[in-house]
């Protein structure tokens, strides 16, 4: 590695949002560090709360499922209760592995005693179902992952 490479790297690092860079290429080691603004410390605000009181966890709602890259997520368009099947006696609309057509009903969400049908945004295969029957779902909470 030559000096101009280092300078180029420095420039690239400058322009990036990274605050720390450590590189070892062959015999060359480079570490770069920036002092930037405060990081995402906001998570800490309720840390005491979370540690101390089980009831103080937002444990009823999981809005951070792992990010899936191969497919399209179907999000809840409104807050309500998720129903996997048209009625308690019937089978679920879809299961993991099922092929679905665009517009096909995937589930119901109940709000204000009204049932809303949630339909597939595209043709594909149900890769994952993020919620269970009768779960409370938030606005924009991921419900399904549809892959090709």
């Amino acid at each position, binding site marked *: 590695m030559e000096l101009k490479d280092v300078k180029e790297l420095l420039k690239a690092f400058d322009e990036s949002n990274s605050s720390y860079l450590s590189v070892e290429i062959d015999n060359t080691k480079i570490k770069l560090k920036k002092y930037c603004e405060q990081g995402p410390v906001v998570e800490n605000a309720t840390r005491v709360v979370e540690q101390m009181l089980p*009831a103080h966890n937002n444990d*009823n709602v999981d809005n951070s499922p792992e990010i899936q890259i191969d497919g399209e997520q179907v999000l809840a368009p409104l807050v*309500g209760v998720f129903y996997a099947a048209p009625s308690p006696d019937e089978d679920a609309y879809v299961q993991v592995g099922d092929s679905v057509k665009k517009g096909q009903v995937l589930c119901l969400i109940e709000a204000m005693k009204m049932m809303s049908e949630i339909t597939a945004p595209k043709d594909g295969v149900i890769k994952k179902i993020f919620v269970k029957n009768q779960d409370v779902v938030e606005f924009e909470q991921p419900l399904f992952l549809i892959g090709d």
Partner: protein
Amino acid sequence: MFKRILIANRGEIAVRIIRACMEMNIESVAVYSTADKDSLHVKLATKSICIGPARAADSYLNMDAIITAAQVMECDALHPGFGFLSENSTFVRKCNEAGITFIGPTADAMDALGNKAAARKMMMKAGVPVVPGSDGPVADYSKLEKIAKKIGYPVLIKASAGGGGRGMRRVYKPEDLKKLFDEAKAETMACFNDDEMYLEKLIVNPRHIEFQILADEHGNVIHLGERDCSIQRKNQKLIEESPCMYINDDLRKSMGKAAVAAAKAANYTNAGTVEFVLDEKNHYYFIEMNTRIQVEHGVTEAVTGIDLIKQQIRIAFHEPLKTRQKDVNIKGHAMECRINAEDPAKNFMANTGKITFLNVPGGPGVRVDTLLYNGYETSPFYDSMMAKIIVHAPTRLETIRRMRRALLELVTDGIKTNGDFDYLLLHHPDFIKGNYNVSFIEEHLDEILSWDKAASEYPEDNE
């Protein structure tokens, strides 16, 4: 007591209500829009649930989403805070239908007080002074002249169909009445093809005085003294204080009685505020009743020692008031400054930003209610009020000095606020003397802004 309360609001008032719930061992459920995911009320509540996108109409004003949230989170009550759906009787009725206790007045009381003409009649019947006027259209001039003489000058001529000042005339002397009446009548006819005219008394530069009311479901109604909210800019309150130093005990008693009568006339329950204008001769007139908790409720909490949010919750749970009128003691003086993310130098333009350094005032007699925390990114979607600083001290002068001290300690790097402007305002001789009314800011804005400019030109230390 309630098991779990949904807070149908955001910001510092949501935090305020959650705090009351925590202290009453009641679980709280925060609702939030996608823009408020990292908001303080979400972090402090027992549970939280996203109800819609950033736009308030789709989230905090979305009745179905909020009631659904209350149902699926198994809440037995709902606190609306202020703004948003807090004075919406349709929402109250929907809550009732869903079996969720709305923490506030009944829908009927809300409706009765929401219609200004109906409320005016109700108050007149209850013997509560309203701004004197013709109480209906006045067709001919001779009748008008008689009414004007009766209610006393100055008077205000108004057109039924009027708007934006059209067909409106201020009359200071009897000899101008005929000319101005004809003018106004012609104008409103030209503009609206209608010349029905009203008359009412013109209250010149009044004080805005409001009385805090608590009313239970068992017929007990008390008032907790007044707040002077005359420091307003474009009808937005900036600074509120209690007591009003220009109200003596007799007047307080009289106005308090009128406020209680107003609440009783409307069969009002829960916390509410009766607003009056007070003229220079200490005549007061009912303007309206706010059917919710108010931004400035903390000022009353400071001087009375009564927690208004907890009282609201207890009243909604059908408990009788434990405090009688004679037990209400106003102790010392309290003042609130609203800290808005507004730049006074740029015509109070709102701004947003990420809070890179926050220092919250502390020490004796200082209470801060805020939605801010270090690292928080303020939202462009909602109100610009970021914090309320409420101070309490034995005397008004000590209160002013304590507030100045608190404002000096406040640092909110990342956003510009009106904190420095308030600090300077608290040095204005007329404010210090308590010599102000609703036109104070309008009259002194440029003067105070010029001090601010001078102060910011003072050379800073080399850093």
